[in-house]
């Protein structure tokens, strides 16, 4: 799964820590999602899409090997 989390964060100009606080997870979790080490749950994806005001599909993208 590809994700545009880092780019979206840069657009809103918020750090990993601030995003983590907004959706109630740890900073390590955000970091792991950004570096593709952890595949997040649907609930967390929806929370993230709410923070950025975009659809989940615009932030996360399915890859061929998934």
């Amino acid at each position, binding site marked *: 799964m590809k994700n545009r989390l880092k780019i979206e964060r840069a657009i809103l100009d918020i750090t990993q820590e601030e995003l983590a606080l907004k959706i*109630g997870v*740890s900073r*390590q*979790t955000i970091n792991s999602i950004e570096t593709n080490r*952890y595949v*997040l*749950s649907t609930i967390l994806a929806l929370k993230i899409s709410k923070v950025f005001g975009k659809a989940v599909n615009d932030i996360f993208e399915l890859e061929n090997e998934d």
Partner: protein
Amino acid sequence: MYVKYVCHIVKLTCNNKMEKTTLLTVFILAIILIIMIFTKKIDFSDNLNIKNKLKLLPFWLKFPGIAIALFSIIAHWTDIHGKNEIIQLFWQLGLTVGLLFISLSKERTEDEMIMQLRLNSAFFVLIVGIIVHVFIVLIDKLIGANDFQSYSSIYLINFLLLAYIFFFYSLKRKLRK
């Protein structure tokens, strides 16, 4: 028929003190299980929903857990030859209780990734624990030492808990980078 069978089992098993203890424990656990089923704490009905959240102890219980575990290790060092029975009991059970507190209490931010780490490390440690246990029994039988009889199950439990804590926190540390 069932009553006869149960009576037979009780007669067979109640030969000495140790087996009585086992039977009593199983009996108490069965009663707890029945109560839990009747109060619907355990739900066997069709509308089963798999929750992806674990019910854990609060975070602050980590510190008493560490204190109890360290204290019991120190108590063991003061009586290494095992002369004092009370210290021996405290060392075995205290370490288990302390490690349980550490492993079953929440992290500072308990989120879904931590839950996944818990699952991964618990499953890994279960497999490793079983393999190590089988290996020890096998070697014990091969050598013919029969040392294994003298180890209590507390050692295995402590090993599993220690391995779980080690794997969980080493995985968590790796993610911090």
